[in-house]
């Protein structure tokens, strides 16, 4: 009844035991893509969705019309945030392996996405992150101790023990609470941007999603509303090529770029080298200016690579080629910015080593402090009564009763 039919089944380019193969990737040379005016109409710039904006070339020089001409001090801050994100990830991964936290998600290889984008936005802009955007929290200046306490579900946990590790938030930092359900933040960010427009504010919203999650209906709803109301929002698709074990072709990236979903909805779509700090910054700044000045939303596809496992519960050696990240054509975002700064005479290997040591020490000191507020197994613990709070603003009678029963159960 079921024949080996004409049904097309997308394949990953390389599975375990095979050589990494990135020949599918469509690249543009650094500096080759034109930079339209921020007032350009979406319909007039549709080809941007198929090209790849790159600024840093193979010799580590910044070239072309998208060169953002950032101050070297700004670039050093970007390098520092990215390095801190990576070292924090490494350390937290180890603490998970040591059983101190229950779960962790690294952003290895994708640090430029969150850091450069956050730096190109303003502090008043509202961010709706996914779960692999820790660089946003770091670039927005959240304290490492606060982030670690969330991972530990301890007495200083901003979520009061209710969320899985990495599901941070910061109302003051304008970082929306992260959901474990995929894509839900996309239409919410559009709504926030609509509210800003209704209120006549200059603030814009930005949100992030994986290319895999862009398959969810919420993604498409977000594009539709953003287009209809010309909401001041940046809709970012982080195309890191993998959704756990499924390759981006399986999410619809084989026939057309994810950025190209934008023009289909009447939204500017642009594809950018996600491992090129300068290109990501420039594209984000361009899109933010469009949003802020009434030229509407932009869908940005950031082409990058998920260098690590999906999470601490995942083992990518079961489904993709070994050491594939070493062959990724767009390199490593930290190394590329570092080499660019060295070429500018604004950085050195010695300074890099010193900064690594300084950040490592800061992470270690933060961890030492964070665990004094408790871990899942030792030290002070959150009061389980907290479980019943915040279900509603005021606790209804049935929850008060259940809280009393829970206390009695604990004896």
């Amino acid at each position: 009844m079921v024949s080996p039919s004409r049904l097309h089944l997308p394949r990953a380019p390389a599975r375990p035991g095979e050589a990494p193969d990135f020949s599918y990737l469509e690249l543009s040379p650094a500096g080759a893509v034109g930079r339209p005016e921020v007032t350009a109409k979406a319909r007039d710039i549709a080809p941007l969705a198929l090209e790849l904006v790159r600024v840093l070339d193979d010799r580590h020089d910044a070239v072309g019309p998208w060169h953002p001409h950032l101050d070297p001090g700004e670039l050093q801050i970007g390098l520092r945030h990215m390095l801190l994100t990576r070292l924090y990830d490494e350390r937290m991964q180890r603490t998970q392996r040591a059983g101190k936290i229950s779960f962790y998600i690294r952003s290895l290889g994708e640090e430029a996405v969150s850091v450069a984008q956050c730096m190109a936005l303003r502090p008043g802009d509202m961010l709706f992150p996914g779960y692999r955007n820790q660089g946003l929290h770091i670039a927005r200046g959240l304290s490492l101790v606060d982030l670690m306490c969330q991972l530990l579900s301890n007495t200083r946990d901003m979520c009061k023990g209710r969320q899985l590790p990495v599901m941070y938030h910061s109302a003051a930092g304008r970082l929306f609470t992260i959901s474990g359900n995929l894509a839900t933040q996309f239409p919410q960010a559009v709504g926030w941007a609509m509210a800003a427009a209704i209120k006549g504010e200059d603030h814009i919203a930005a949100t992030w999603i994986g290319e895999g999650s862009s398959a969810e209906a919420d993604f498409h709803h977000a594009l539709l509303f953003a287009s209809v109301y010309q909401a001041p929002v940046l809709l970012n698709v982080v195309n890191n090529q993998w959704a756990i074990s499924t390759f981006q072709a399986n999410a619809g990236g084989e026939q057309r770029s994810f950025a190209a979903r934008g023009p289909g909805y009447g939204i500017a779509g642009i594809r950018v080298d996600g491992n090129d700090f300068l290109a990501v910054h420039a594209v984000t700044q361009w899109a933010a200016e469009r949003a802020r000045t009434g030229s509407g939303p932009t869908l940005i596809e950031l082409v990058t690579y998920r260098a690590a496992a999906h999470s601490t519960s995942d083992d990518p050696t079961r489904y993709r080629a070994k050491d594939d990240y070493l062959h990724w054509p767009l390199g490593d975002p930290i190394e590329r910015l570092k080499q660019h700064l060295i070429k500018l005479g604004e950085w050195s290997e010695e300074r890099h080593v010193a900064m690594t040591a300084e950040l490592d020490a800061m992470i270690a000191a933060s961890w030492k402090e964070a665990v004094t507020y408790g871990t899942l197994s030792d030290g002070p613990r959150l009061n389980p009564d907290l479980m019943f709070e915040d279900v509603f603003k005021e606790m209804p009678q049935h929850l008060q009763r259940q809280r009393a029963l829970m206390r009695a159960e604990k004896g």
Partner: protein
Amino acid sequence: MAQMNMIQALNSAMDAMLQADPSVILMGEDIGYFGGVFRATEGLQRKHGEHRVIDTPIAEGAIIGAAIGMAVGGLRPVAEIQFADYIYPGFDQIVSELARLRYRSAGDFFAPVTIRTPCGGGIRGGQTHSQSPEGIFTHVSGIKVIMPSNPFDAKGLLITAIEDDDPVVFFEPKRLYNGPFDGDPNKAAIPWSTHPKGEVPEGIYRVPFGKADIVRSGSQVTIITYGTMVFVATLAAASLGVDAEIIDLRSLVPLDVDTICSSVKKTGRCVVAHEATRFSGFGAEILAIVQEECFWDLEAPIQRVAGWDTPYPHAFEWEYFPGPARVGAAIKAAMDPA
């Protein structure tokens, strides 16, 4: 017979059905090449082909919508939703479409879709990997709702589900995948190989829907439960030395009212236990039925044990989980009403 854990038993059911019926296909996120995040479909794509074990995009609404179309087109799809917590993007397709297709077309169309999905807590999954939403689905007319508690039942019930011409939502208590779990997280894990229900036949066999399993016969109180709570209730009753009759419903829709009522009429006392939240939970339906059918035989108010009416918190997993202490308190209240 072979020793299987629940994952292996489910895998074996799907393997046998793929082998026996060319219209059976599997679809879901990460289920093909990778074999599923819980490994339930491991090896099945390699064995049965990419056209029959299909990796889908992350789009539960599309998975269920497409499964309905495939089923109408003559296939018998088994869709995996990676966690029950992720089923809601497909909710409209289940409630408004899948459940009513036969009804609204006067029987001219139907969709034999099975939706498998892991549920329940106890794995430090936090509020988005721990939910037990079965009561949301039992409330919808037109879908069958199943939750096995052991490998033998899991395989037999899944085969029944796949062969059934009506849609089935098949909940798998993930804390039971590797072994029976009695609610005490500090005890060493017990594998299914030490449990009689870990003995599973290799080929095709069926466990019928609408037939509860009396896990333990007893005379003093009837405990009506399903899923992980079967083992929690067994431990709770044993530690109190109460001669409890423990009923594993297995099939919530259709429900085995006869087994429930004849047991309660015999014991005169009743405790209902589930892991899901209490308010408007499936337990309320059981209570209503027992009250309607067994009122004159009851010697004490019916007791209900459930998860608290809050989202499932990461840090307070065991304060939230309705463990042996909570079930024990309910048994005591049923035995000795104040």
